[in-house]
């Protein structure tokens, strides 16, 4: 099985140069991408069912060791997710990228291959190789876009990617320890202790967290993700952030996790909670559909990170079953989020293609023109809003159950912290629901906000298949969380150190036999029975068909004839719909402002309402860097004015310093 996966990887690598072919290149690349992704999903599913396949040594690699691949439970779970997302994105690209230039085609298979290589790696070097391949290929995809804002986004992305690499490489080095054994088996045998463990956690959080979009390193994500073509945005949000979470789970929890102190998982828990809250709140405010979705990604990544951090805390407190519950919540939410976020990004792409905009203020009423896209997007939005019985609710239910049980840890500080995190999780989930309602409602409901919207067309049959397939998968994951977690028990065991969630079957998932359980299939049956009964009853008592008339709108007069869609000012704008939450929560968290500027008494100009918000985190991060750059530039400028004597003195001093260093190191080695 691992051999077949290695051949799929090789096939993707060979596909990249074919993208440069004129004319047919696009179909070849996307067809190959679909086939490889489907292969990944199938083999990952088989891997989950059949179990561990052993380590495969590749005939290439760095001078000290070959590259190694392996498909264990954790890899298989994330590879399944990557395969499903990749196949759907491939179908979308098959339709919409048929005439893409080579600069967008060549990196695409490399991006897929990089993600798959990261997931399949069985040693630290292969993991880093795959991770960097993924970063660079996705950067090339971004940089291939035209426009100044797009270039700036790509530069920002590259900066964060380099920063991530600079943190992950020493983290892997520390995990390898003094023996220098980079294989996962070797690292697992000697987990880091004491300060090394703390440094590993910090470096992994900075390195993989910056790629996943954890606060405070999330600033690039809402800028860079929307810039790419929609299928690449979907891959970045749906799959790449999950690969980064996989790296967190693998390096910090699986390899470094055993025998850690109680507070070790706390940073992950706290950063996860902060990401969930900030991401959800920004998602309620953004006016660009893809930026909104990127912010919602930050929220959901936050949920998964919370679950993983909680799992580490519970594991340290020797509460194995609860640690497994939290790990299962994280894994299930990662899978669910990958599916519904891909669905929503692809739907946003269809809307952009069909209605010509991704600004919520230029859309509206699209349910009439694009019914299939609207229906699929509704399933995705409802899942993202954590509504039962869909995928988002299952993950968040498990997370809340784990949070509600975590008081058993015993330490008072931790109990209060977890209680606060519980409140933040519930708040973020509700904010996420508001954001998804706003996204779907403003896009598909109401009256058209521009005439262009009327010319929208529904999705092409092939991409409809991708959307419908994803919607179906979202429902399936929502209905069968227990069966999926039973299948993913090896992955849960690797993260939590405890063999699987206590109650996980087709019908039931829950923390313990005595505790409360979630029965999504039974719930679905109850809901369907109630709906059937209700519809039959109402049909019987109220058989008259509905009549149609003009909008009532509280009795307002009909709009004049030159406004065919009614007065645009009587329908909420994107910023208007966000106003209650902006005033209630935006002030402290998003530096939101709202001010009415009145003309001086007697002045003829109108009063103006000014409002807006910005995320204060990214500027706060970049400002010191810019200042440092300026300071360095000024210092370098000063060097130019030195006299020849000072120059010679400088060179001589450097030489002496280097020689002294050499002598010191040599003495150390001789001893």
């Amino acid at each position, binding site marked *: 099985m691992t051999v077949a996966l290695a051949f799929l990887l090789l096939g993707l690598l060979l596909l990249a140069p074919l993208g440069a072919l004129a004319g047919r290149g696009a179909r070849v690349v996307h067809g190959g991408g679909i086939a490889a992704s489907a292969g990944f999903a199938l083999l990952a599913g088989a891997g989950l069912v059949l179990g561990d396949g052993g380590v495969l040594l590749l005939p290439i690699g760095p001078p000290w060791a070959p590259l190694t691949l392996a498909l264990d439970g954790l890899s298989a779970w994330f590879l399944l997710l990557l395969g499903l997302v990749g196949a759907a994105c491939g179908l979308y690209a098959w339709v919409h990228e048929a005439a893409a230039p080579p600069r967008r085609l060549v990196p695409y298979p490399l991006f897929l291959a990089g993600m798959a290589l990261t997931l399949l790696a069985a040693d630290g070097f292969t993991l880093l190789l795959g991770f960097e391949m993924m970063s660079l290929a996705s950067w090339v995809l971004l940089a291939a876009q035209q426009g100044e804002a797009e270039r700036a986004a790509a530069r920002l992305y590259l900066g964060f990617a380099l920063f991530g690499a600079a943190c992950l490489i020493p983290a892997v080095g520390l995990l390898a320890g003094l023996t220098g054994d980079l294989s996962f088996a070797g690292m697992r045998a000697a987990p880091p202790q004491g300060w090394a463990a703390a440094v590993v956690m910090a470096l992994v959080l900075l390195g993989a967290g910056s790629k996943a979009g954890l606060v405070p390193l999330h600033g690039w994500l809402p800028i860079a993700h929307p810039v790419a073509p929609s299928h690449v945005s979907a891959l970045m949000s749906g799959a790449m952030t999950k690969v980064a979470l996989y790296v967190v789970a693998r390096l910090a929890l699986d390899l470094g996790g055993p025998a850690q102190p109680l507070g070790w998982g706390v940073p992950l828990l706290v950063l996860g909670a902060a990401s969930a809250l900030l991401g959800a709140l920004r998602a309620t405010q953004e006016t660009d559909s893809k930026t909104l979705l990127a912010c919602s990604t930050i929220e959901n990544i936050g949920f998964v990170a919370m679950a993983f951090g909680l799992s580490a805390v519970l594991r340290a407190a020797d509460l194995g079953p609860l640690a497994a519950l939290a790990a299962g919540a994280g894994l299930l939410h990662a899978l669910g989020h990958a599916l519904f976020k891909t669905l929503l990004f692809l739907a946003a792409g269809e809307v952009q293609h069909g209605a010509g905009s991704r600004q919520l203020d230029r859309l509206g009423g699209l349910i009439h023109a694009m019914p299939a896209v609207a229906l699929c997007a509704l399933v995705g939005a409802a899942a993202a809003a954590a509504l039962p019985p869909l995928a988002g609710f299952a993950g968040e239910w498990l997370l809340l159950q784990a949070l509600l049980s975590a008081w058993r840890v015993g330490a008072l500080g931790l109990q209060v912290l977890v209680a606060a995190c519980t409140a933040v999780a519930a*708040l973020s989930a509700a904010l996420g629901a508001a954001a998804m*309602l*706003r996204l779907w409602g403003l896009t598909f409901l109401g009256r058209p906000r521009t005439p262009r919207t009327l010319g929208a067309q529904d999705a092409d049959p092939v991409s409809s298949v991708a959307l419908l397939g994803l919607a179906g998968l979202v429902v399936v994951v929502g209905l069968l969380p227990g069966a999926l977690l039973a299948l993913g028990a090896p992955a849960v065991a690797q993260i939590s150190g405890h063999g699987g969630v206590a109650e996980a079957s087709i019908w039931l998932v829950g923390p313990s036999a005595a505790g409360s359980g979630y029965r999504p299939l039974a719930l679905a049956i109850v809901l369907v029975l*109630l709906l059937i009964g209700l519809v039959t009853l109402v049909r019987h008592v109220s058989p008259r068909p509905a009549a149609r008339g003009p*909008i009532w*709108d509280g009795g307002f007069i009909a709009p004049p004839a030159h406004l065919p869609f009614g007065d645009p000012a009587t329908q909420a704008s994107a910023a208007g719909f966000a106003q*209650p939450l902006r005033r209630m929560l935006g002030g402290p968290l998003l530096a939101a402002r709202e001010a009415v500027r009145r003309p001086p008494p007697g002045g003829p100009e109108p009063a103006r309402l000014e409002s807006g918000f910005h995320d204060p985190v990214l500027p706060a991060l970049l400002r010191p860097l810019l200042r440092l750059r300026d300071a360095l530039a000024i210092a370098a400028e000063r060097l130019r004015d030195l006299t020849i004597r000072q120059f010679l003195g400088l060179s001589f001093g450097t030489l002496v310093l280097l020689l002294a260093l050499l002598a010191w190191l040599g003495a150390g080695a001789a001893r």
Partner: protein
Amino acid sequence: MTLLPAILTQLLHLALMLALAPVLVGVVRWLKARLMGRQGANPLQPWRDLRKLLRKQPLLAENASVVSLATPYAALGATAAAAALVPGFAHGMLLAPMADLILIAGLLALARFALALAAMDVGTAFGDLGAAREMSFAAFAEPAFVLAVLAFAILAGTTNLDAIGTLLQDGMVGLRVTLGLALLALLAVALAENGRLPVDNPATHLELTMVHEAMLLEASGRQLALWEMQGALRLILWLSLLAALFFPFGTAPAEAGPLAWLLGLLAWVIKLGALAVALAVFESLIAKMRVFRVPEFLGAALLLALLGAVFLFLSTGLA
């Protein structure tokens, strides 16, 4: 045979919930009218209204989509499913193993989402305003609810409403400060979720002050009847939930037979009546608060629930 009584009580419970919901709304309205010195309509008036609305021909806006048609069913279905989970006169009903508090919150969120979608369907200012405000209030109500659930999860070791109710009824927990704080928090959440004073005025005629009613301005005929029923069902659900958590006495076990059920029914009706009186008195005494004061109101509920949880942490830590 415990399956048969479980099924019977479940069906009876759902039927009673559906039948009593409009009556409860009528009783609250009648009580409020009496407190204000008016004659008041018959408590059965909501049922008469529903019958009238069902007979009428619904009028839809020209640009109304399938959302306007389907969402009332989805919302009422989800609320009815949640209502079936909250114990009324009996414990151990058929769906009792599913009666998770978080799931009930999820089903109510589903109904709320459907309502907000219906409000946004034809694109009116009032509908959009109501939907935005409703979702914003929910963002504050949900954390307060979940923290109140935390207190019960610590006391009872589970979030299953039926199990919590049985445990509390057996007096295993006793009287605690935390329960009082959780009661205050849940009362605030219940007021907000049901659009009652001081968060929203259920009897207002001024569109600008509406939240819940503003979302229904475009509904008519059977759609409006379904929405009215959904609102009534939500009210009886919340009052039953409060009764099950804080006044757990008198509820009959499902296997105990029809006579015990009758006693349980009596206890349930008394509890609902007491809560209805409390609601009517409270609503008569208090004024509606500004929209942007609501976060403070619900934030206070959140803090009370958190305080309750901290009390529990401290007491379990000392014990």
